[in-house]
């Protein structure tokens, strides 16, 4: 268990626009404490993905500051930005983002290989077992179902034991049972390993599993819920949409 007092990611006044005039993020300030599990909710187009990208150093804000484990990543140029990111953060994308030409096993170990660290195979095997993919190590992503691929992407994020995992709608394409299993896995990672998780979701039930829910609308944080339940998350969401 990590000291949940320290901050892993801190965004201060982050603004980002893709097309002039429309702000995908509009002066967002938020911190994610170590070992916390945060859900990000909001209507479609409200800036959830953009927030995750900026927080993870995948994208550069127009203004504002992003600290990742205390390091200001706004000033980093490539390839140092990538190095900083991959050392600390794992990402689960909406589109899974697996390599077609690599097996499940090689996909899971890929970030560690790229980071040049000796892969922790025992842990990777353990993670694969937990996402119920043991025995499918040699399969290609193309041979898996959507839910299975989502779990490979999760296993990949977990296998590198990052300080923080960003997950963009990780249960979106999953059936109920698999979605629950994934969520349980996240919970476990937070509780047992002290991993910090920031997860975008549309589902109040999923959000209810988190320690905190941040609501976004039009690129601004409009609500911040702690100790959420599915009911409170749903109600708050209704309020945001109705605004």
């Amino acid at each position, binding site marked *: 268990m990590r000291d949940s007092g320290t901050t892993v990611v801190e965004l201060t006044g982050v603004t980002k626009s893709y097309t002039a005039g429309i702000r995908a993020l509009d002066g967002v300030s938020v911190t994610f404490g170590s070992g916390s599990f945060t859900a990000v909710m909001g209507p479609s187009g409200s800036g959830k993905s953009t927030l995750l990208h900026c927080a993870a150093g*995948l994208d550069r804000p127009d203004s504002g500051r992003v600290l990742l484990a205390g390091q200001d990543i706004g000033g980093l140029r490539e390839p140092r930005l990538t190095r900083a990111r991959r050392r600390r953060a794992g990402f689960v994308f909406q589109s899974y983002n697996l390599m077609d030409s690599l097996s499940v096993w090689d996909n899971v170990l890929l970030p560690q290989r790229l980071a040049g660290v000796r892969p922790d195979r025992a842990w990777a095997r353990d993670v694969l077992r937990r996402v119920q993919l043991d025995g499918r190590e040699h399969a290609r992503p193309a041979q898996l179902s959507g839910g299975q691929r989502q779990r490979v992407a999760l296993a990949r994020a977990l296998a590198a034991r990052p300080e923080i995992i960003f997950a963009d709608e990780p249960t979106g394409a999953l059936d109920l049972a698999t979605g629950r299993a994934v969520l349980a896995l996240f919970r476990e990672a937070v509780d047992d390993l002290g991993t910090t998780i920031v997860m975008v979701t549309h589902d109040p039930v999923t959000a209810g599993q988190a320690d905190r829910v941040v609501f976004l609308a039009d690129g601004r944080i409009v609500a911040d819920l702690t100790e959420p339940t599915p009911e409170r998350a749903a109600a708050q969401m209704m309020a945001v949409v109705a605004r």
Partner: protein
Amino acid sequence: MMRLALSTLRGHRGSHLGTFVAALLAIALLAGGGLLLASVLTARPPADRFAAAAVVVAGPHEVKLTTTTTKKKDKVKTKVKTETLTGSRTLPADLAGRLAALPSVTAAVADVAVPVRAGTPDGRVLRGADGAPVIGHGWASAALTPYTLRSGRPPNPGEVVLDADLARRAGDTLVITTRTGTRQVRVVGVAAPDGRDGLPAQGAIFLADADIGAVAGTAGPTAVALLAAPGADTAALAAAVRDLAGDAGVHTGADRVRADLPGALPDYIGPISIFGFVLGLTGFAAVFVLTGTVTLSVRQRLRELALLRTAGATPGQLRRLLGAESVLVAGVAALGGAPLGIVVAEVVAARFRQLAVVPAQFEVRTYAFVLVAAAVAGMLVTFAAARLAGRRAVRIAPTQALTETANVPAGGLAPRLLVAAVTTAGAVALLTFVPLDGPLGIGMSFVATALLLCAVAALGPLLVRLLTGPISRVLGTGGAAGWLAALVTRAERRRVAAVAVPLVLMFAVNAVMLLNNALVADLAESEQAARTAPATAQVSMPAGLDLGTARRVAGTDGVTGAAITLPTRVVVAQGGKPQDYAAQGLLTTGTAPALDLSVREGALGGPETFAASAYLTRQHGWHVGDEVPVWLADGHQVRLRLSAVYERARGFGDLVLPAGLVAAHDPAGLVGAVGLRYTGDVPARLAATVPGVRVTPALGAGPAGDAANQQGGWELLMVISLGFTAIAVVNTFAIATVSRRREYAGLRLAGATPGQLHRLALREALITVAVGLTLGAIVTGVVVATFSTAQDGITRIVVDPLTYLAMIGGVGGLGLLAGLLPIRLVVPRRSLPALEA
């Protein structure tokens, strides 16, 4: 469908760019090669020396053989095969007199044309404009063009009139050498055709009519030209002439020019074979590359095709879409490719004119049908390749579009194996049954290469699977990039194959051509050296050496042996087909041999005999003692007995005839070189007795002029071929890289730095290049080793280590560059990961 095709084209300009580039270049090369070949095939002699004559009679300029075979049921089949001669048979001396009596004939001129070596008394050689040959005539022939006097007067015996072009470079006295000897004649006049200084492609000198027969050494005229009254019925006259002319040719209109001495007209036989080869080579490479490019770019769009399937498109609609797209792309490419083809043809022709591979008068004609044919061929190939590649792609399940990747349903292995088996069998048959040491050797070794390349392309993914294992184990060590490159290349066999095949093409086609040509040149050179090794020195004369003078050279005091050779061409028949060969007239004197042909069987010399190369003897199934009909340069047939079989024929000729026979029947009939064995101060004595003679210790002279020209042609062909295949390599790499944007974006998101991706691309390029070079070296090795073994029984694979290394380095370097450059554009060094995959 066209509208959808148009919109998908607009939406995917990038992914069609590769196909467009390949189609543009392919069409340009096909059009360029086609225009050159068509132009050279239809090239007419640049000027008509008989422009003023109505009808011209000339001896046949070809050997014509008619074979009649009786098949079962009394079906009689008649085949006529001809072969053109380098000389011309002379006509009966009294023919002109008989023809003059025909109605409407105002004059019948007995025309003599004889190749002349002209020079100034101080030994300067005089050639026509652009190095054209100088042809001697009697003054009576001047009226046939007509040449009219610009100054001076008609020649009397011992005098000469020059055309205005030659006159500019000549002095008062001209030294002329023909097979009958050397004479000094006084220049007394200058004549020229109307409006120009001379005829293109032939310089003309006019001797007195009383002199010309003796100078030419012929009993009769080479042609009889009839001048007719204005308004005379040429057709009726020609018919009347035909009755009197026997088997001689009767020429009217545009055909009259063909009555001129073959040696006086530019020769397009060399260019025809070179341009035929240009078209064959570029055509193959273009079609090969285009097919590969289209297949690759269709496969790169599987995802999009799958999406169309989910949107309700039937497989048939997708097939039609692919077809329509490809025709549109190739059609647009044709708009640029056809004009580019004209440029290609013009540039090549200009260079070939410079190299004297084609006569200076050669012009590229823009035949619309060639351009259309090239465009249609390009479009057909693109269409067929797209449909073929699409055949499997469109069967893609719509659900594939929903998943992350679209995978091609595994292609049938059987058709691939079948294609590979057929093409390999073809190559093996060619390499086994065609005599590669013959005139077809180089061409056939190229065809075998092409067939093997088709087999490699068909088996591509299989071969790549075999090779990437061991290669990537070596090249994939160390670092994440190496690890990843090994995995990716092993997984993406098709893509690796698609990119490696152009490398195989580039290496094999060019290496085979370079190495085989180098081998032939080396062998010719070493055989030349071995042939002339016994001689103390070689004697030649830039201004021309006739047989009589050569005999005097051979008879110089102190000479113990001499070998006088006269280059010529003769025709021998095989299976009813006359075929022309390079030959030499040979006269040996003295007791010490001065020429070593490496006689394998029999002995050189003896009246009414000839010797033949081992190759020719084998081809014809001759045996020493056989009597063989041989047509000499003027079409005169002699029966000669085979007295010897010799080995060293390269750069020399396949037949050796008595020198006197060649001198008598080749209108040029001059000595090429005299090999001498002597002791003491023979050179000084020679210089005194035969002024202008050149004595060289050994025959250090390079290949004969003709061979040197051909060499220039080959080199230019190499440049075209290297250039095109290099573009193909770069193009394929670019297509493969650009279509991997998604994959690269994914890797960046998974934590790869741009530098790592660049290193990954380098490793992958290294592996691909290694695969390509390995396959290329195998194809090259098979062809070159077989070719080499056929030449002299020695199996060589590398032939010329420097050339081989240069090819490896050049092709490999280009492949690495082509693999590295596009990724630097797709993934700039400082770029952020692309989030929109």
